[in-house]
């Protein structure tokens, strides 16, 4: 089933990508087969036509197979009318019995600004609860808090174009090569064309490090020690912009004296950061020598119990040098979600009220008057982690979750699932039928329109508001989120305040609120957009805020001061000496870092639908330094149980020499809908930053224990196959169906017997049994087509998986191919294809190695020959690695 669209073949719609905070403009073009193809929008200032592999694969993620199409009450299909009544009655009952503080909204950086605005207004203004928070709390709340401490407002002072003019780009806690590939390519261009230097500060060497001039493998949590040292050295080496500091800032001395405590001497700094004095000096020298400096930071900074201090340690250095809001100079937070920024703007965080206004008396009064909402919430609400703890304690009785998957992503996710079952009223607005959160038995499930089906705006990391435009009709009875809440609000008697009939109307109100009694007092002012009519809104070009009714949009702020503090001065912040919230112990001696892989995003509800994105990293892996692995008795490819005080996962071990010692890494994406025993956020502790409330998701003490798997294997099927929850597995979307990769401590024969049943009554069967080797294979054909397969073997047979997936996608197999299916090898001794490297052009490692042997010497030559790496470029570091690996052999050949 695919979505309906009235567009003509060849016609296209400009919209904004569904994924990260770069906010690339894309064009969705209707194809002859009814599908869509995504290409970069050359006119969009975020990307100028470039897109990454995830964006390029958007057209593959539009199938409706797994969509939630109708409202459900207690799991049963219901009408919208019934569902709205149920929600309205439930909320009323909760209000009457427990008061507004027993209601909470948990929102998402993937909601559009208009959805966010209605949610925020409804909850805070009319239900009167302040407990409105969002998954952005897990993403960039520390940046928000850091901005507010330093600037008096949540303002990103700079723009992407500053990357083009910077002489020094510093990445802190960011694997931009994989997570923000389009911006990373822009940084690489600055390196290549202008000789800009790139410094990467991370606890592990990543693909980003391969494109950096200096990689600093810092110990977890110690970024602020390094930046405090830099701050001191800026002062000591007279690199400060004394005039800027004097005219536009305050708090220098206190912050500097605190920096002396945090970073007392080089020796201490070296020990705490794990860096050598040479490395530290090289970094300081670069910073002091190069005036035009952009520091980009991401989740490595934010997802930390000291995240806000890290942000301020960085901003302190920029304020001290006056490198802020200038061309080529400034701090630049890179957000992870398409509309985390939009959520911040409407006030979708518990410590904000609305439109960058907080809970000060005058702000509350102003918003209350604007909304005509006398019962408005008057104090800050609970932030995500605390909100769910309040649910656990039974204080919050009603929860509405929109467009996010807290059953996967929250710290202590296992216990959070239990907490959700205690709610009197649990509402989920969701596009997908099967997520870990929809499996937690919500009382009401409301089908939401998804990306591509709804209209609104998003704001990217550089404050640029762009339109997301629909190019398909919403399937079934799905509706946009703003409509869910508008209907409930109307049913609850707030019809006059919730009259919205289009996203444009909501946007106008949002823009009007930003300008309401503003007069330059608040950074967020988009008053110029408050009068857009439907046509103008539809045609809205990407625009940066602030864009007040009088004056032009601003690309940069604060170069001439003008901060949004009481005295309009920027604040130096005296930070605390950092320590991890929980330090390793003898029981939990390793530190677990978490993050993304290149081709997946969040809990894979969208990227998991694409066959192209599925093959770069097929399963969640636990990356370990070989020394740490050896100490735990683990070899590469072994399985390990990784365990914290809160949860456990079972993952395959991959060696990564780029990791610091005692530091391990696992991806965040996999969950019970896309795998088994693979949810790493279940391990995370609920330790939060004191200012931002953001949990420390990247430094959890864990222990690792080898699991002696008795068999490994894979299953291919046309339909989704239920898998036992105790089985370590990962689902991979493949052409024509799905593959499940698994490993088990059970006997191969019994596991095979069990899983064969899961394949159901397959057609013509063929089998192989080799009990002595523990090798059992089953395949089913329908005529000349492969219908299903189950291989249970002592060890995973990767070439067999490749070959079977390849065969599974064919409409017809030749006799020779069919004979080769059980063998798990293509006939005529075709070599294994190797892992997928370039997702854009489906180029595999073997092809790259072959081209290298035939004389392609560098990444450019590989690109010229195979096209690999010539689109989004995110695989270029990997291509370089393959070439480097082969280089000694090539040289030996040449010598011989």
């Amino acid at each position, binding site marked *: 089933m695919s979505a309906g669209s009235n567009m003509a073949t060849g016609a296209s719609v400009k919209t904004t990508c569904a994924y990260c905070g770069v906010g690339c403009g894309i064009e969705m073009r209707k194809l002859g087969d009814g599908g869509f193809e995504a290409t970069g929008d050359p006119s969009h200032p975020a990307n100028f036509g470039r897109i990454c592999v995830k964006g390029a694969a958007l057209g593959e993620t539009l199938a409706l197979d797994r969509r939630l199409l109708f409202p459900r009450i207690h799991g049963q299909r219901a009408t919208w009318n019934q569902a709205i009544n149920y929600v309205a009655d439930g909320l009323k009952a909760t209000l009457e019995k427990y008061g507004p503080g027993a209601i909470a909204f948990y929102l998402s950086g993937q909601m559009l600004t208009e959805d966010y605005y209605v949610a925020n207004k409804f909850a805070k203004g009319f239900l009167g609860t302040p407990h409105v928070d969002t998954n952005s709390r897990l993403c960039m709340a520390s940046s928000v808090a850091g901005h507010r401490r330093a600037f008096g407002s949540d303002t990103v002072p700079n723009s992407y174009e500053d990357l083009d003019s910077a002489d020094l780009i510093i990445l802190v806690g960011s694997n931009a090569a994989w997570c923000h590939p389009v911006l990373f390519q822009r940084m690489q261009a600055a390196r290549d064309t202008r000789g800009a230097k790139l410094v990467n500060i991370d606890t592990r060497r990543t693909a980003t490090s391969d494109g950096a001039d200096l990689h600093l493998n810092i110990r977890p949590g110690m970024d602020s020690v390094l930046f405090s040292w830099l701050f001191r050295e800026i002062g000591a080496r007279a690199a400060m912009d004394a005039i800027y500091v004097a005219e536009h800032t305050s708090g220098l001395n206190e912050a500097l004296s605190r920096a002396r405590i945090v970073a007392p001497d080089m020796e201490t700094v070296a020990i705490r950061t794990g860096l050598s004095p040479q490395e530290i000096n090289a970094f300081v020298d670069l910073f002091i020598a190069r005036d035009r400096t952009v520091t980009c930071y991401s989740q490595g900074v934010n997802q930390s119990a000291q995240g806000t201090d890290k942000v301020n340690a960085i901003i302190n250095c920029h304020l001290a040098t006056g490198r802020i809001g200038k061309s080529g100079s400034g701090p630049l937070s890179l957000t992870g979600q398409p509309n985390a920024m939009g959520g911040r703007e409407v006030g979708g965080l518990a410590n904000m009220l609305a439109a960058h206004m907080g809970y000060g008396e005058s702000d509350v009064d102003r918003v209350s008057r604007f909304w005509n909402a006398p019962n408005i919430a008057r104090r800050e609400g609970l932030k995500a982690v605390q909100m769910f703890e309040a649910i656990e304690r039974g204080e919050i009785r009603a929860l509405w979750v929109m467009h996010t998957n807290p059953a996967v992503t929250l710290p202590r996710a296992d216990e959070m699932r239990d907490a959700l079952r205690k709610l009197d009223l649990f509402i989920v607005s969701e596009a997908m039928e099967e997520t870990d959160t929809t499996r937690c038995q919500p009382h009401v499930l409301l089908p939401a329109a998804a990306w591509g089906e709804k209209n609104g705006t998003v704001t990217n990391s550089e404050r640029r508001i762009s339109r997301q435009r629909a190019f398909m009709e919403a399937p079934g009875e799905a509706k946009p989120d703003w409509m869910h809440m508008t209907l409930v609000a109307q049913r609850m008697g707030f019809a006059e305040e919730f009259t919205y009939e289009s996203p444009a109307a909501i946007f106008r109100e949002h823009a009007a609120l930003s300008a309401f009694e503003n007069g330059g007092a608040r950074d967020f002012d988009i008053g110029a957009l408050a009068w857009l009519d439907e046509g103008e809104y539809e045609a809205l070009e990407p625009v940066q805020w602030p864009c007040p009714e009088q004056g032009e949009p601003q690309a940069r702020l604060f170069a001439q001061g003008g901060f949004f503090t009481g005295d309009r001065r920027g604040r130096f912040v005296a930070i605390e000496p950092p320590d991890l919230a929980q330090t390793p112990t003898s029981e939990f001696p390793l530190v677990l870092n978490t993050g993304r892989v290149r081709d997946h995003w969040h809990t894979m509800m969208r990227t998991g639908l694409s066959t192209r994105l599925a093959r770069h990293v097929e399963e969640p892996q636990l990356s370990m330094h070989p020394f740490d692995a050896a100490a735990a008795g683990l070899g590469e490819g072994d399985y390990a149980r990784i365990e914290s005080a809160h949860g456990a996962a079972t993952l395959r071990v991959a060696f990564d020499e780029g990791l610091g010692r005692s530091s391990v890494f696992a991806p965040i994406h996999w969950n019970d809908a896309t795998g088994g025993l693979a949810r790493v956020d279940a391990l995370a502790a609920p330790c939060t930053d004191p200012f931002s409330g953001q949990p420390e998701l990247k430094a959890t003490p864990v222990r690792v224990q080898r699991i002696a798997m008795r068999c490994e294997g894979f299953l291919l099927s046309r339909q989704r196959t239920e898998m036992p929850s105790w089985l370590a597995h990962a689902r991979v979307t493949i052409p024509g169906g799905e593959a499940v990769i698994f490993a088990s401590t059970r006997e191969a024969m019994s596991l095979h017997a069990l899983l064969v049943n899961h394949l159901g009554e397959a*057609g013509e069967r*063929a*089998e*192989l049994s080799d*009990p002595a080797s523990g090798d059992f294979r089953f395949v089913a*054909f329908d005529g000349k087509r492969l219908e299903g397969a189950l291989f249970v073997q002592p060890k995973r047979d990767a070439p067999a998986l490749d070959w079977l997936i390849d065969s599974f996608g064919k409409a017809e197999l030749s006799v020779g191919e*069919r*004979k080769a299916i059980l063998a798990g090898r293509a*006939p005529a*001794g075709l070599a294994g294809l190797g892992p997928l490297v370039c997702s854009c052009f489906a180029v595999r490692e073997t092809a790259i190695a072959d081209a290298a042997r035939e004389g392609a010497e560098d990444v450019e030559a590989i690109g010229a020959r195979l096209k690999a790496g010539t689109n989004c470029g995110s695989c270029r570091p990997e291509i370089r690695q393959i070439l480097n690996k082969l280089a000694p052999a090539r040289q030996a050949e040449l010598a011989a």
Partner: protein
Amino acid sequence: MRRILVIGNGMASVRFVEELLRAAPGRFDVTVVGAETSPGYNRVLLSALLAGDVKQDDILLRGRDWYEANGVRLLTGDPVISIDCELKVATLASDETIEFDHCVFATGSNPIKLPLPGIDLPGVRAFRDLSDVDAMEVCASKGEKVAVIGGGLLGIEAAYGLARRGADVTLVHVMDRLMERQLDAPSAALLRRAMARKGVKVLLEKSTQAILGDDHVCGLSFTDESSLDLSQVICAVGIRPNAALAKTAGLDVNRGIVVDDAMRASIDGFFAIGECAEHRGVAYGLVEPAYAQARTLALHLAGAAAPFEGMVLATNLKVSGVPVFSAGEFLEPEGADIVVMQDRANSIYRKCVIANGLLIGCILVGDTDDALWYLDLIRAKTDISLARRMLVHGRAFAEPLLTPPLADRAA
């Protein structure tokens, strides 16, 4: 010139003469005596002849002109009836006597005759020679109801051939599966299904109690008190070495004529090859060891040593569209690994029996292209450890793995 008398003109005999002519041209004066009127023919192809896949001329091994051209005296339709081992003289049915220096028994085997009431009734016959084929063709072409007793290789081929020619055939077998001496249960079941598709009804675990009829066979009765109406019976329940003449002559005979690794019988100057011989306690019933023995003996007489040391048996069923191959230890001996592959829709079955890094047996049904390759692995005792995981998938997949990659070999 030394005189050699070859008794019998079957496949072992002809191959022996060929090998001798090649190994020792002009050194022997050879006389071949055959009991059948036709010069030696390829008995293995009798089933193909019956099935109509070949013509009678096609199965003739050598024409009379060939014997003539090579100076070999051929006497047919005139069996040897006695031998004087001391005088080294053989007497033929026609009373002719032949003196010799060496005597080679290549008398083959006789079909086993079931000790059943009615076994001698008209319409009951074996499947052994051209005359049997002629008779079977006649009854098949009339669409008669025929039972073949014996579900071994020969019985299956007879049943298939009869069905091909139009007979209404029932194959009666006393065991629980066909070809139980070459196949395991799953492969035998596949074969049974394939036979059913060819129009042959198969009755298993049927023990014949009596062959019914007064002046001509008209049915079978079984020990389970069931019965079958029919007008022809083919008995194909096995063969026995044809060693009566040798025994009478005074040679040592157990099941067959006892020979050593050079094919020498118990009396100097006497030899035996093929189905009539018993080597190291084994009387082979297949052509391949017979050929090997023929070669051994020819070389021995030519003065070269090429001892026959026994042979792993391999069986090929020649029923078109149902290729079946079995070799070596095909069941599941203690301590052996069994790897089985089965593709039901394509009626393909493969089983490899592996012990100590060696392939010691295999069964192939449905696809026997690699049969000889497997047989070589078994006979040559090739170490298959490196190719083990691909072995069952056939030569294309496994052969490249048999030898370690170059890099490993250098190390």
